[in-house]
């Protein structure tokens, strides 16, 4: 133990010594945290996710074709794709005339208008995409491009709610819950999307039933 630690821990212990009638740690069921909307939802997880994700300006997609159309319409022509998604996503984009790179060059992060990486799951209740260090090929590829596409391939990773997603955080050293595009309301309370992170946040499910 360092000297500083001794001092801090000593001060904390001393502050609490003699404290009586301490509050016990309350326990509670996960359901206690569910919103009314989630409790009453009769939709399947992915549909519930899609609605909630859309409510926070996210875009949920079921077909690579929808992504192609969106990127072409928006003029987002050049980007990066995780090599693991080459066959299912990258090549479809290339076939449609978009420029796709499978290597992410740190020297030119601003050249990628879109970044396509894998999602580690979604949360239905909150409309959240889950990213973690193991599934994300490069943190910057999921962050720097204006359009980020998180691709969900594992249908089992649709978590119903926040407590369930917490239980499944796993051992990754870096888990990020993404609930919509980057945003700020710092100036006069006016909402602007796309501050440091993506201005467009997409979640594409492939291999699903729809």
């Amino acid at each position, binding site marked *: 133990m360092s000297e500083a630690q001794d001092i*801090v821990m000593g001060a*904390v212990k001393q502050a609490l010594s003699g404290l009586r009638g301490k509050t016990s740690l309350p326990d509670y069921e996960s359901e206690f945290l569910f919103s009314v909307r989630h409790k009453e939802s009769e939709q399947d997880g992915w549909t519930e996710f899609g609605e909630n994700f859309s409510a*926070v300006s996210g875009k949920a997609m079921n077909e690579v074709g929808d992504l192609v159309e969106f990127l072409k319409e928006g003029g987002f022509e050049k980007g990066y794709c995780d090599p693991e998604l080459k066959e299912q996503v990258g090549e479809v984009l290339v076939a449609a005339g978009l420029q796709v790179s499978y290597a992410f060059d740190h020297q030119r992060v601003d050249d990628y208008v879109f970044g396509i990486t894998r999602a580690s799951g979604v949360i239905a209740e909150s409309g959240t995409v889950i990213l973690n260090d193991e599934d994300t090929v490069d943190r910057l590829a999921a962050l*720097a491009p204006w359009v980020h596409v998180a691709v969900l391939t594992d249908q089992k990773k649709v978590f119903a709610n926040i407590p369930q997603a*917490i239980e499944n955080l796993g051992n990754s050293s870096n888990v990020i*819950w993404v609930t919509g595009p980057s945003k700020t309301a*710092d*100036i006069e309370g006016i909402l602007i999307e796309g*501050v*440091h992170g993506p201005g467009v946040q997409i979640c594409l499910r492939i291999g699903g039933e729809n």
Partner: protein
Amino acid sequence: MSKSVQPIDAFARDLPRETRDAVLSSVMTRTAGRKAKLEADYENPDDLRRLAGKVKQHTLEHLDEYLEQAEAALIKNGATVHFASTAEDAREQVLAILKENGAKRVVKSKSMVTEEIHLNDFLQKNGVECVETDLGEFIIQIDGDTPSHIVQPIIHKNRRQVAQSFEELGLGDYNDDPQTITRRARKHLREKYLQSDAGMTGANFVSAESGRLVIVTNEGNARFGMAANGLHIALVGIEKVVPRDKDLGLLLNLLGRSATAQQLTVYTQFINGPRSKSQPSGPEQMHVIFLDNGRSRVLKSKERDILRCIRCGACLNVCPVYRQTSGHGYRAVYGGPVGAVLSPLLAGDDFSKYADLPKASSLCGACNEVCPVNIPIPELLLRLRSRANQEGIKSAGSPPMAPFAKLATSPKLWQTAMTASKAMNHLPITMMPVRPLQEWLKIRTLPKWSGGEFRRWMREREGEPRMDTNKHE
């Protein structure tokens, strides 16, 4: 301090109307948004607030155990853990870590605790560039200003002022469109991220169970700060620890809704150590500094409940006094109701310097009603008033209470005073004996004095025997 005017009252009086109106309308919108969101999502949001309050109170009362647990878990995850007793200790430790790694350029994510220890100036003096990356904090930094709200640091500024600052910094011609300003900041700060050697953050919560740090931002600045360089330093108040991962779910559900009417803040990061082996971007080292800086002293006091605070800013938004003053009226890092409690406590021996703040409240209780961890702020304000009274700290404009107590425990004297004071009706305002009363009457009228009238009526009514006059004097 002037003898006759309270500093915060004078501050509010002198605050430009435009600033006051900007603050007022912004926080009213936020208050309404928070309420609508919580009430739409929960049948009884108060149950959730009370539960969260208990969890945090329990943690504080067992903080030694949970800190030890958190430390062990963090070390197991590969992080390096430090402790800092004072602001100075913390600043020196940050500098030492940076020096060891030859880090000269730091990008910083929004953190109240780094404001508290005045880290930026210190690093700057020691040759380290430290750039604020939250848009609001960035503007505060280039203006040499201080934040006036926990969540919305530039609540006191308008777009024209921001546009001017950007122009002066050389970020393009004058343009006050918030979207243009944001894009310019994106471009400017992206360069700073990519050139940085280290990222600094605070933490919203630390789970003792797993050692996970939770950091939330809407802009994505904490993500970028932890993707573009190899060194992460998190400066964390010791009160940020919570027992279990499941408690993170409880608190996150309340934090976003209370702060910004969001179910979740856009980016919720769970940091469990340095980057994983397969990951090419992000910190290879993670340092966590647990900061005391007066917190253990607060923990010892009966006002320890204030350490439950999760910095959502809801109490500022709802506070009628904050609405008239902005955060700057509170003369310290933390403004609003939470600041009025925390500032005098954190000041330690300088308690008297901030002893006026707990008095600057009508004790309306709106703060407690919105607090996501149900802190009994009015009660804490009263405790601090009592402490100031015990320590004999004089307060401008406060009427003495000993004569009142004498009067209110002497029924005959009381009744005489009530009747005699009827003379007040016949005095012109300027002859009112007490100066504060004159101030009062400048903008308000008082009703007609009717001292003694009710009692007389009561006596004269039928059924006079009901009067119970037997007991006293």
